[in-house]
């Protein structure tokens, strides 16, 4: 079983949802970002999404755009992001880690080389925002052939006609983008999430993780009752932006992670 499968099976056993956290690799700099990454599992993150910075994050709102700018400004690149994953894996063999980003830096790095090095570093899966199933052969197919999960984004605009196509070839879990919009914007109503989950269930047995606009422990808790996972990104990244020092950035991100984890754990399903 893959780390993602194992983790979702354990959580099913424990009868609770996963807290999936997103931070951008190298934000605000390599060392601080690595300290955050290393602290996340202990602070209650069940699955980690690590953003690969890109100059043009077209599907991201201001918080994650700024995180990308900070990371790139501090010299982050794909080589360093993979090094960061290796450093993380030295101390953690069980927490699933998924790289998330845009296709161009991977395309430039070389798809084969990227897949091989990501596997070797201990990456479990990939989320690539601008690769719809129409372009599976670019990365999804070779990544899955090499044993990396490819996590699909589904959205409120993905209708029933299209869903099977999007879900075919999805593995690990399914990420439901609960609002049409960019990251960090407004949140969907619980009613919408409930209906969307019911619709997705008719098409897949994979774990469903809900993201976009989820900021507080209470909110995370109520979404956790509806799905197998809750994704929080912009709210964590905001803590880095607002921190007065690097130490405070680490402390604040992990502090919010603990609160979110409590919110999710309280919400027994």
């Amino acid at each position: 079983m893959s780390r993602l499968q194992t983790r979702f099976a354990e959580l099913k056993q424990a009868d609770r949802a996963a807290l999936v956290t997103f931070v951008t690799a190298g934000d605000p700099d390599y060392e601080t970002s690595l300290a955050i990454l290393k602290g996340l599992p202990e602070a209650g993150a069940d699955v980690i999404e690590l953003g690969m910075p890109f100059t043009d994050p077209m599907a991201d709102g201001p918080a994650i755009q700024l995180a990308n700018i900070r990371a790139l400004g501090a010299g982050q690149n794909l080589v360093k992001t993979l090094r960061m994953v290796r450093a993380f894996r030295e101390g953690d063999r069980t927490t699933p880690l998924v790289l998330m980003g845009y296709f161009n830096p991977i395309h430039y790095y070389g798809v084969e080389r990227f897949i091989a090095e990501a596997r070797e570093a201990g990456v479990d899966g990939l989320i690539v925002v601008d690769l719809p199933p129409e372009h599976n052969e670019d990365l999804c197919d070779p990544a899955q052939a090499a044993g990396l999960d490819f996590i699909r984004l589904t959205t409120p605009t993905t209708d029933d006609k299209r869903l099977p196509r999007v879900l075919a070839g999805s593995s690990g879990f399914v990420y439901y983008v609960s609002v049409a919009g960019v990251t960090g914007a407004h949140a969907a109503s619980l009613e919408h999430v409930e209906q969307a989950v019911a619709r997705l269930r008719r098409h897949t047995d994979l774990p469903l993780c809900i993201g976009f606009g989820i900021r507080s422990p209470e909110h995370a808790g109520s979404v956790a009752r509806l799905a197998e996972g809750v994704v929080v990104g912009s709210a964590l990244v905001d803590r880095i932006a607002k921190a007065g020092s690097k130490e405070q950035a680490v402390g604040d991100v992990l502090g919010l992670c603990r609160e979110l984890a409590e919110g999710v754990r309280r919400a027994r399903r």
Partner: protein
Amino acid sequence: MTETSYRTGPDEKGLFGRFGGQYVAETLMPLILDLAEEYERAKVDPAFLEELAYFQRDYVGRPSPLYFAERLTEHCGGAKIYLKREELNHTGAHKINNCIGQILLARRMGKQRIIAETGAGMHGVATATVAARFGLQCVIYMGTTDIDRQQANVFRMKLLGAEVIPVTAGTGTLKDAMNEALRDWVTNVETTFYLIGTVAGPHPYPAMVRDFQAVIGKETREQLIEKEGRLPDSLVACIGGGSNAMGLFHPFLDEPGVKIVGVEAAGHGIETGKHAASLNGGVPGVLHGNRTFLLQDADGQIIDAHSISAGLDYPGIGPEHAWLHDIGRVEYSSITDHEALQAFHTCCRLEGIIPALESSHALAEVFKRAPRLPKDHLMVVNLSGRGDKDMQTVMHHMQEKLEKHA
């Protein structure tokens, strides 16, 4: 009809060879597929085509003249130079050809809100114009750097009732405006039509914008046959995203006797790294919905383009151009800021025509080539826009030059 046509692309996946495609977030995919279907229906619907022809004629002012530039021809002492006068169109550039087409499509799809990105402001003005004409809400994204250098166009868009949203991200130029427009679109996907201004973006935009601009080449063909009794020997046009060039080139791609030259912006010179020449100084990558040549650094991050002309200041190029470059059907050269400015002045003084700085790049290329060619060589250059919008930029440069020599 030649055996292998260069005019059949893209394929059903929106690919021109290895370029193009639909590299967008899932939220946009269903809409883009809808748009592609709707466009396929519209382009064979006689009612749609009739309406398009009506607005092209009575609103845009087509056909635009094909003008024999006698004094430029004398000046060069070689090829016979014709200017395709796209700058005489309503709103002063070729951009309106595409805007009329897309706004009719938006209306057909029942969209109430139009968004667009703009660099020099010409596409923004053309979009604001057609939105006003059809009574649709209009939001234009424009980088703050471009807003500073194109204030007249910003004012024009506002007069036409558009909301101009300044984009501070990145270097505040066309690429950043396009990112922000995509973010708006993903947020307002149900109500909004994204009116892309060039032959880039996800399929069907590159093909659709090309088709709407191809009126330039079709007219040129008829007009030159009428004047000279034959096809041109060469075509020259400037390229940012590449819509005016593609519009002129496409109807001639299968004519082996027609030499075709696209002109990129070399900025301070390609060797300086401060340029906008994606084909001559970039490598293939994926941005804004398509795979194409892009300016990138050693980590696959997008580098900001530089050109004196805001309309060419984009780090990518339409995927069909990338393909034509790959297969060698079109030659792509480049012209520096300095060369373009010189050509700008020459055209003003000799023809009484103030060209856009974008089009001045094409003119500069013509001035390099024409003197070496025989007098019976027919060369058509696309005068894609007028230079009124560039007064501030040109004044600034003339002043700098004066100060340097003082």
